[in-house]
């Protein structure tokens, strides 16, 4: 056993977030007893209904927000504030509109390596701009770019500082399906090359299956928790065009859809019980196949499952 599996790269312990009730009544606990680990090089997706606190958890990991209780450790040290060790890709891309593409990325590079000279910063920034396929657009302002291109700049900026972990809050939520697919493919490629550790929030089940090693499912709040963790064992490299032919694809997908449609709410009710479990159940696709086989549902009906795509409102 390697040391990394004994001491996980990221460890989240009993994280909770409580808001004081606006009416002066009982406090509202958005989530509590959130426990999970992320190993180095792992791509973890989190999904769940809006309002369960996914974004808050991501912001706490980033150090931009603070938890009401619990701890986050990364690389053996407690996370107490924002750090260059954790790159963040914001849903709203958060590019500075007065800077060009190159200047936006160079701003991050200069922050990471203040002693570098202009040329070195430029070359380094250009390498990541090329990586996301934006060569030729480096002197454009964000307002001249499409939504997909802006998000690519956001990705280039986050990768350019070579963080130990990448945090993505629904990075492709605002993009059309076609653009989203293209950028997902690029992200897949870049992550494979860089062995990047990623924590990503998504509402898109297919996106989660395509990109992740593990998918964490959050129950509905209040008292939201991570109810299940699905090991995504689909082999890499993954191809968007062929992934649905994998044996485990539909069992995983159906499991996720079922969770979002019905089980997430049952878990919500379960959490009101004082002795509710605080550690998620681990789901392996192998188990799912067995349960699928037991059920009387015809195999053809898998393809007929509605495409659930939850949108933040």
């Amino acid at each position, binding site marked *: 056993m390697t040391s990394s599996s004994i001491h996980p790269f990221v460890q989240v312990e009993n994280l909770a977030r409580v808001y004081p009730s606006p009416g002066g009544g009982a406090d509202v606990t958005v989530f509590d007893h959130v426990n999970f680990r992320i190993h180095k090089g792992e791509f973890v997706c989190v999904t769940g209904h809006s309002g369960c606190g996914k974004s808050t958890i991501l912001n706490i990991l*980033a*150090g*931009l927000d603070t938890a009401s209780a619990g701890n986050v450790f990364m690389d053996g040290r407690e996370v107490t*504030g*924002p*750090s*260059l060790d*954790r*790159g*963040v890709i*914001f849903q*709203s891309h*958060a590019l*500075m*509109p*007065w*800077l060009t593409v190159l200047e936006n990325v160079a*701003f*991050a590079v200069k*922050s*990471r390596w203040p002693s570098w000279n202009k040329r070195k910063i430029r070359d380094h920034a250009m390498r990541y701009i090329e990586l996301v396929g934006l060569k030729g657009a480096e002197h454009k*302002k*964000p*307002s001249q770019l499409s939504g997909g291109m802006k998000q690519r700049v956001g990705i280039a900026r986050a990768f350019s*500082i070579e963080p130990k972990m990448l945090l993505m809050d629904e990075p492709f939520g605002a993009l059309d399906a076609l653009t989203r697919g293209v950028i997902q493919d690029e992200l897949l490629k870049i992550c494979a090359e860089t062995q990047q550790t990623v924590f990503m929030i998504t509402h898109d089940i297919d996106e989660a299956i395509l990109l992740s090693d593990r998918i964490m499912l959050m129950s509905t709040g209040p008292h939201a928790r991570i109810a299940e963790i699905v090991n995504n064992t689909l082999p890499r490299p993954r191809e968007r065009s062929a992934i649905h032919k994998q044996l485990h694809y539909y069992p995983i997908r159906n499991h996720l859809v079922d969770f979002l449609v019905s089980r997430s709410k049952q878990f919500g009710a379960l959490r009101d019980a004082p002795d509710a479990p605080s550690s998620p159940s681990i789901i392996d696709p192998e188990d799912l196949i067995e349960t699928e086989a037991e059920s009387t549902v015809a195999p053809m009906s898998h393809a007929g499952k509605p495409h659930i795509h939850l949108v933040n409102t």
Partner: protein
Amino acid sequence: MKTKLTLNQKAGLLSVGLFALLLLIWQLATLPEASTVAADVDPEYAALMGGGAASSASSFPTPAAMAQTLWGKLSDPFYDNGPNDKGIGIQLAYSLARVLGGFILAAAVAIPLGFAIGNSRVFYQAINPYVQLLKPISPLAWMPLALYTIKDASASAIFVIFICSLWPMLINTAHGVANVKKDWLDVSRTLEVNPLRKAFRVILPAAAPTILTGMRISMGIAWLVIVAAEMLVGGTGIGYFVWNEWNNLSLTNVLFAILMIGVVGMGLDSVFGVLGKRVAYQE
């Protein structure tokens, strides 16, 4: 053949037409009065009353006389024949120097202070009552106090400009800084950008359009106020020139000065318009 005029051409033609109309009305209004009124008056008496046959015309200048004055004054703007007779260029230069002096002083105070106020809710709430109280005071009301304490007419005028330029710049800077998008601040937090770099590379460019709007408003007010201030303190400047020419009963010169004040004011405003465009960004 029909030619289509562009919007600019149409507007230009209309502008020229309006100008011609104005000249026409002006000309008609200043036509010499019929001499029948003066006929049954003793010419000697009429001359004594300033209404001699030679000057039976209205004392309001005709467009032609105005054009002549304009040409004469502008062809030699920088002559200096002593305290009461300086070229318009010199008078405007005095006024501009005072306005710029007061304005720069105000910017030096308002922009850093606005940064501090915009960055801190506590500071903002502590300062806000003072700003609300001081803002509506006519800057000229400070004049006696300034004259008493500074004991220098020109410096007092600069102080008055300082006071009136302060508030729009202060309020706009604070507002611009307080409303920098949280996303950009979050980005600089995750990049561990140090406070000074954050102030100059993130907050300043983000707030620059709002700050520049404040500067533009300030400059507009300062140029309004300088005329009144110089009427009070006297000596030099375009405001003094207007008042002096009123005392000389030279309405031609007063009209000329009014025109110049307008031209310079427009020029100052367009400078800030250009600067504003330069720092503007599109999200």
